[in-house]
């Protein structure tokens, strides 16, 4: 019995040690600053010492529907779109924090807030956990993981070495260790300022009528929205909140009004300008939409001009 326990213990220690070394190596090798991955998050994490007049933050209703080049013409000065499609506010906070840590400067932060990122658990993948794994040991990032992933996963990834990379081994395949690719000099996001405007012009799924779902803001999302605001205050960044247009067949339904009022109350509480476009005429023009919640190319250019004017008027 004693021999069995001793053997089991040694075997466990061996596995643990191998896992620990492998994780240490992977953390170093796949560090976003050293390993190139064709992903917008990595592009943002690698932006250093920039001086921007404005930056856009949020989910696809910032990343895909606001054109930085158009906005630059309206507001003047360089801008950047650090919003990521499908993201929640926890991921937005993390990206903003890292962006500022990399000695980037922003004067105005334009944040997209709506019922999607205020109820991020309804989104399919609001926190792209696998992309930040090499940074998990950093305390602040670990705290975000605690809020964004299940407690079992948080425990496993933090205390069982290499388990985080084992779970995402298709994102961190062994072959990457043998064919490290260098960072390209120019990425597509460099030419668009980070905007990823949707090129499909045709309205998708036009037949079905989309009704606004019952709105219940989530605690974690509210917490990270507050953290973003606090972070901006620390760095003397002006904030501009907006809710992007969504296609409406007719009128504005009650639930949407409730959402507007809620976001407006947050804005007022923090003395931040808020602009909602739910009742804007663009919402009824289906030629401007790709689907119910995203503008198409034409719509994005039109909306970017409108948004630019609003920001210009505000600041």
């Amino acid at each position, binding site marked *: *019995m004693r*021999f*069995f326990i001793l053997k089991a213990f040694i*075997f466990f220690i*061996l*596995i643990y040690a*191998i*896992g620990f070394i492998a994780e240490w190596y992977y953390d170093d090798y796949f560090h976003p600053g050293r390993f190139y991955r064709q992903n917008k998050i990595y592009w943002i994490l690698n932006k250093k010492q920039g001086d921007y007049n404005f930056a856009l933050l949020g989910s696809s209703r910032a990343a895909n529907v606001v054109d930085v080049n158009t906005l630059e013409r309206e507001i003047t000065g360089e801008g950047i779109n650090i919003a990521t499609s499908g993201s929640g506010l926890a991921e937005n906070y993390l990206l903003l924090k890292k962006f500022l840590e990399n000695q980037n400067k922003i004067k105005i932060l334009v944040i997209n807030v709506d019922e999607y990122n205020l109820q991020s658990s309804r989104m399919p993948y609001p926190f792209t956990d696998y992309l930040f794994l090499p940074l998990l040991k950093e305390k602040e990032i670990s705290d975000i993981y605690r809020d964004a992933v299940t407690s*079992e996963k948080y425990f*496993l990834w933090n205390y069982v070495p*290499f*388990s985080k*990379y*084992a*779970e*995402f*081994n*298709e994102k961190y*395949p*062994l*072959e990457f260790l043998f064919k490290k690719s260098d960072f390209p000099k120019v990425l597509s996001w460099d030419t668009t300022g980070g905007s990823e405007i949707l090129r499909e012009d045709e309205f998708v799924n036009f037949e079905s009528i989309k009704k606004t779902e019952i709105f219940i803001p989530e605690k974690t999302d509210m917490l990270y929205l507050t953290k973003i605001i606090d972070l901006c205050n620390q760095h003397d960044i002006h904030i501009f909140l907006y809710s992007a247009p969504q296609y409406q067949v007719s009128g504005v339904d009650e639930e949407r009004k409730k959402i507007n009022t809620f976001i407006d109350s947050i804005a007022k509480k923090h003395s931040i300008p808020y602009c909602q476009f739910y009742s804007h005429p663009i919402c009824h023009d289906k030629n401007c939409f790709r689907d119910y919640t995203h503008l198409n190319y034409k719509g994005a250019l039109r909306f970017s001009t409108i948004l630019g004017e609003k920001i210009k008027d505000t600041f």
Partner: protein
Amino acid sequence: MLFNSLEFILFFPIVTLLYFVLPYKYRWFLLLMASCYFYMAFVPIYILILGFTIVVDYFAAIYIEKASGKKRRNLLIISLASNIFILAVFKYYNFINENLSFIVTLFGHENPIPFLKILLPIGLSFHTFQAMSYTIEVYRGNQKPEKHFGIYSLYVMFYPQLVAGPIERPQNILHQFYEKHNFQPNQATEGLKLILWGMFKKILIADRIAAMINPVFNSPQSYEGIPLILASILFAFQIYCDFSGYSDIAIGSAKVMGFKLMNNFNHPYCSRSISEFWSRWHISLSTWFRDYLYIPMGGNRVKISRWYFNLFFVFIISGLWHGANWTYIIWGALHGLYLICALFTAKASEKFVSIVRLTKAPILWNACQTLATFLLVCFAWVFFRASSFSDAYYISTHLFSNIGQQLRMILTDYGNSRMNLVYLNTGMISFATLVVFIFVMELIQWKQRKEGDTRYFFQNKPIAIRWSFYIFLVISISLFGVFHNNSEFIYFQF
């Protein structure tokens, strides 16, 4: 709860530790509670179905022992009928109704019988068959009825084999719940090795293959020729690794606690005939059908035409056992036909072998037989895996379509054809990795056969070699295992 889940990795050591720490008299209760928890992790309410069969069979067995003559027989019928009723309602009702609707609409009417919106309870066919084997054995006088309700419940619900077998016989397992198991380091080591081996087969091979071939089987009409052949062959490995992996984990987890479950697989793809295949594949089910259906029907001690009928009928039922779909019935029928054809042509085949003098080259003859059996089994698996009869028909009729042109394209890699046709869009490295791991598995299994021990894992080798192998398995699972598909074991649905 899945064996390949984080929950099980926590559940198993806790239950095992408590099992050995607790005084002997409370252990059955711990196992029963653990089994309830294990089962309720899927759909909690379905524990009531298990409860129903347990209560019915428990009392039926007690009364069967006391009764005699017709009454004894009637009690058995009541017990079997209640089990079959549960199966019929939850598994076959919609299937029967669907077919009824089809027939009724042929005559221009509408089927007034409503469809049930119910989820099939996990492992229903397994625990129902295990419960049925108990009452049948009591009826036959081979087993005394279990008076302890808790122990009997545990017989049906013992968590390692609750949802996908092996379908145990009462003679093998019931008495083990009364035995006082002390912790045996050797048994625990063997059990843990089996669990690791099962995980290797499931997470690394079966789930990798699933990711590769699911697109082919989900829309087979987009493919023809080589991808269909590859998907059919790979599915044979997938289902083997999936189900035998599950059995290994089940047997291994029971073994750590000192329980011995029956072996469910014995290198089935090395079989030289279909009848041999069935003595090596899902042994607990094939022996169940043999003992409780085939032999009571007369087995082979009847007229030859009746014998063929018996064989065919048993395989049809076996197909139906797997699922309420015509594809499963055809799969079973195919195996029945294979067997009948083999019997029918046995003499002619012997004559042919002696004429071409294949008996002088036994290795070649064995290889031919093994390959032929494997290909026949693969062909039948197409019906097992396909989503519908029309999909299965399409696959089986397009296996060799356009194959010459595809081969030429592959040789020149025209239009990225190797990626599309050979690697099934997963990439060369991923495909090669899979092939390497299948090779490793086959190598180990070949060694197991050679050593005559299905649990062979370098037993007599120095500790450094053994441990290197175990560490290789752990590292391989970590680096190449599939953890993101949330993949259940295929046989859970039955």
